[in-house]
């Protein structure tokens, strides 16, 4: 099974090297890969129908519980068959649709990688690998949607799709981690057995929200739906593949996969019903306002996804059956219509539905395919669409919630979907052939055969619903944790309320088709409401975010060293100050302090005076001398408090520094007065507070007990082991000898640097360049 998933990726890598030989007539051979995979997965149908679940496990990162576990059950099977089956037709179709395209090999590469990712997604039983494949579908679909990379709208749509679905992917990762925290495993099968524990957990709602976030973004649910119409900028085979059978169904798959784990609670079902309901009605109505064939199909796709989410939300066995059938229905008719649209676009060079008519005169097989699909999409008997619609109505009318409202919503949706199907499938193929497209010709076989095959299947499954009942629907419902024994798909359900609703749908929908013609007037009418659509709100938000982040960056990263320093200091002051004020008791044990002598007070005063003088003097030289005074005061403190080595070092180093400073800097001019009083006061206050905090901190630390263990160790062993009596020296040259050696090398590097800088002479040209300024 791993091989099956990797085939797509391997083929895609293979094309990187062998792509040149693959662009011509050979390109149709690419379709052998999905065909082979389809056959491979098809052989499992019988075993799955008998209730078997096929699992393959490969170790990946066992130490984190992340393994490649693939599980083929009823749910996965339907999706794998759709991915590979429709994939086969799309691969074949593309070889003609993009014939002679410069980057045909690249296109196949993306498509194959995408197929591999989708297969991995629907087969993964481990949440981390599920997430990985989920992201891979986002990434490979980014390349597919942006395939026409010279067109700006195309690139923008690709970015939008990647952005929206990518965010969803991150939410899925968060959900994985959360569930792993609750259950201690990444395996979805194991989570299934711990369903109660997850539902009882206080963070159950968060997990549901995260899963919803992932599914709704991927499956284009309101208000995240807008990336899908944008993604129509892609070549039509991509739209066919992504939107009828694969990418957008991934969200549906995720919801179905997690239904047995998370479902059954109010928050799960109600949210799905509301979101699905809004999405299906909102976008079904939107189809009326489109004139681009692909636009109509895009919105009807969103609407169909809304219906699926809605059905999952209903959460009854009937609803699951309806959803299973509707996935098949939708995949068949939507793929057909997309392929037909591609043919129209390819042959007649327009997708404007107001200009299309009478094409059946030049391309009859295509017309038949389209009309069959329209029948299925409208739910007219004897298509599988009719079976699906009956089941949907049946499931809705048995829901325990506000039935009237839901029935109204679903019937309205179905009416508009029927309208959309008719506009896309029937209108271009009836009536008189207009002048503008009269030169359109019959496409070749590999283009018209796939839609005709799919369209015919839609009717065939309707006439013989047992073809999908046993192998597909029953195992799928079983995978959702329901008992599939009672399921019987039938074309004829007898006279009942559902049939009445069907009749109303078909009647009103057909009437709507004849009354309401797609026009530019309607399209521009909806355009006026664009400013409150989620898409423009998101765009405004993005613009605002960009502005805010650049403002933020410019404020903190402004290139002035002192601003960085003051930010760091301010932050430290605030954090440390907050903790100290809140938690510390300022207690000083005066008895434990060392007694003051008069000489120490004088030294301290000299040091403080030195610091003040260094800061306030206007002469560089005076500042340097004052620094020398500070250094020597510190030197005296070392003398008073038993550190003769330090005193000697400090004395010599300080003297050296002063000499160096004077030698090097005496030529420089006086300080310029570079800042005004306000800034100085502000900086002064900031540094004063910092100084106070450091002093207070030091006193606080003194109140803590001290551990002298290390010091005692050195003191005890200095003579016995290292034969030296000055303990400090012994530490430096013996115990920590290696450190000292490295220190010496650092010093030598500094010395080399100093030497180099002193000796470096500027070239005449460089000197002139700077003097010009």
């Amino acid at each position, binding site marked *: 099974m791993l091989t099956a998933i990797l085939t797509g990726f391997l083929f895609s890598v293979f094309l990187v090297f062998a792509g040149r030989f693959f662009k011509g007539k050979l390109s149709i051979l690419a379709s052998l890969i999905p065909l082979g995979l389809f056959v491979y997965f098809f052989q499992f149908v019988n075993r799955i129908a008998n209730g078997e679940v096929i699992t393959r496990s490969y170790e990946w990162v066992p130490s984190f519980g992340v393994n490649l576990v693939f599980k083929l059950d009823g749910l996965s099977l339907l999706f794998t068959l759709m991915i590979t089956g429709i994939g086969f037709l799309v691969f074949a179709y593309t070889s003609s649709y993009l014939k002679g395209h410069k980057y045909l090999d690249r296109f196949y590469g993306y498509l194959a990688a995408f197929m591999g990712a989708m297969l991995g997604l629907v087969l993964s039983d481990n949440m981390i690998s599920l997430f990985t494949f989920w992201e891979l579908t986002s990434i490979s679909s980014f390349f597919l949607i942006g395939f026409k990379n010279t067109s700006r709208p195309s690139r923008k749509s690709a970015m939008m799709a990647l952005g929206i679905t990518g965010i969803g992917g991150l939410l899925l990762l968060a959900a994985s981690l959360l569930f792993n925290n609750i259950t201690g495993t990444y395996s979805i099968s194991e989570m299934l057995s711990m369903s109660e524990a997850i539902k009882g957990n206080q963070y159950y709602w968060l997990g549901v929200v995260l899963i919803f976030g992932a599914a709704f973004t991927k499956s284009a649910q309101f208000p995240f739906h807008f990336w899908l119409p944008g993604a129509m900028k892609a070549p039509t085979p991509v739209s066919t593949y992504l939107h009828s059978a694969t990418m957008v169904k991934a969200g549906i798959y995720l919801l179905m996969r997690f239904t047995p784990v998370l479902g059954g609670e109010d928050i799960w079902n109600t949210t799905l019903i509301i979101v699905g309901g809004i999405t299906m009605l909102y976008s079904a109505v939107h189809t009326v306002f489109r004139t681009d064939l692909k636009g109509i199909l895009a919105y009807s796709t969103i609407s169909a996804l809304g219906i699926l989410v809605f059905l999952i939300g209903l959460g009854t066995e009937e609803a699951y059956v309806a959803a299973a059938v509707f996935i098949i229905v939708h995949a068949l008719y939507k793929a057909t219509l997309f392929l037909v649209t591609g043919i129209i676009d390819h042959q007649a060079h327009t997708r404007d539905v107001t200009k299309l008519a009478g094409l059946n005169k030049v391309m009859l097989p295509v017309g038949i395919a389209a009309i069959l699909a329209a029948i299925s999409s409208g739910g007219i008997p004897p298509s599988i669409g009719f079976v699906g619609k009956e089941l949907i109505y049946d499931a809705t009318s048995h829901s325990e919630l506000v039935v009237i409202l839901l029935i109204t919503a679903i019937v309205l949706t179905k009416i508009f979907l029927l309208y959309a199907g008719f506009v896309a499938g029937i209108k271009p193929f009836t009536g008189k052939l207009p002048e503008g497209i009269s030169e359109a010709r019959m496409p070749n076989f590999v283009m018209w055969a796939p839609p005709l095959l799919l369209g015919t299947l839609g009717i065939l499954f309707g006439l013989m619903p047992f073809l999908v009942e046993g192998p597909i629907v029953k195992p799928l419902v079983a995978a959702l944790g329901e008992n599939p024994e009672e399921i019987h798909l039938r074309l004829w359900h007898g006279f009942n309320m559902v049939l009445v609703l069907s009749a109303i749908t078909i009647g009103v929908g057909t009437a709507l088709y004849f009354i309401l013609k797609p026009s530019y007037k309607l399209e521009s009418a909806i355009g006026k409401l664009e400013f409150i659509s989620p898409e423009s709100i998101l765009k405004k938000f993005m613009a605002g975010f960009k502005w805010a982040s650049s403002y933020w960056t410019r404020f903190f990263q402004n290139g002035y060293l002192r601003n960085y320093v003051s930010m760091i200091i301010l932050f430290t002051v605030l954090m440390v100050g907050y903790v100290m004020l809140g938690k510390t008791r300022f207690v000083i044990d005066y008895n434990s302090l060392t007694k003051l002598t008069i000489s120490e007070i004088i030294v301290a005063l000299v040091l403080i005076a030195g610091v003040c003088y260094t800061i306030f003097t206007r002469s560089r030289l005076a500042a340097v001398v004052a620094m020398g005074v500070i250094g020597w005061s510190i030197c005296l403190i070392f003398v008073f408090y038993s550190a003769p080595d330090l005193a000697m070092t400090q004395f010599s180093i300080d003297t050296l520094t002063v000499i160096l400073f004077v030698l090097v800097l005496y030529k420089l001019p006086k300080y310029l007065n570079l800042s005004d009083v306000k800034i100085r006061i502000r900086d002064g206050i*900031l540094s004063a507070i910092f100084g106070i905090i450091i002093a207070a901190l030091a006193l606080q630390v003194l109140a803590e007990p001290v551990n002298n263990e290390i010091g005692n160790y050195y003191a005890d062993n*200095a003579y*016995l082991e290292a034969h030296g009596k*000055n303990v400090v020296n012994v530490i430096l040259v013996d115990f920590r000898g290696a450190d000292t050696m490295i220190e010496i090398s650092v010093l030598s590097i500094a010395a080399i640097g100093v030497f180099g800088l002193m000796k470096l002479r500027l070239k005449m040209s460089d000197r002139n360049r700077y003097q010009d300024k």
Partner: protein
Amino acid sequence: MEILLALMIGVLYAGGIYMMLRRSLVKLIIGIILIGNGANLLIFLLGRITKGSPPIIPGDANVLTEAFADPVPQALILTAIVISFGLQSFAIVLVKRAHTVVKTDDLDEMNATDEDS
């Protein structure tokens, strides 16, 4: 004395930070040196100060027996003093060099790498 030392440390830090916030390169170096001195004193103080008993083993003994100053902070500070000298000398020469090349001591005029800015 500890309170006095803490006060001195505070003054050194405050002065150092103040100098670092100035626009002059030379003042920046002075600021760094002041903070360095403050840090040395801080380590010294936190290692607890002891009067008149350096960590030197008397000629006739093998180990230190009486109370003695902790040698570890002293070793640390010694290293720090020497290293900061390396830093200071390099920085001073660098300032000098920068001044000969770009004729300014003002950091704000140095914050662009482009020639024509």
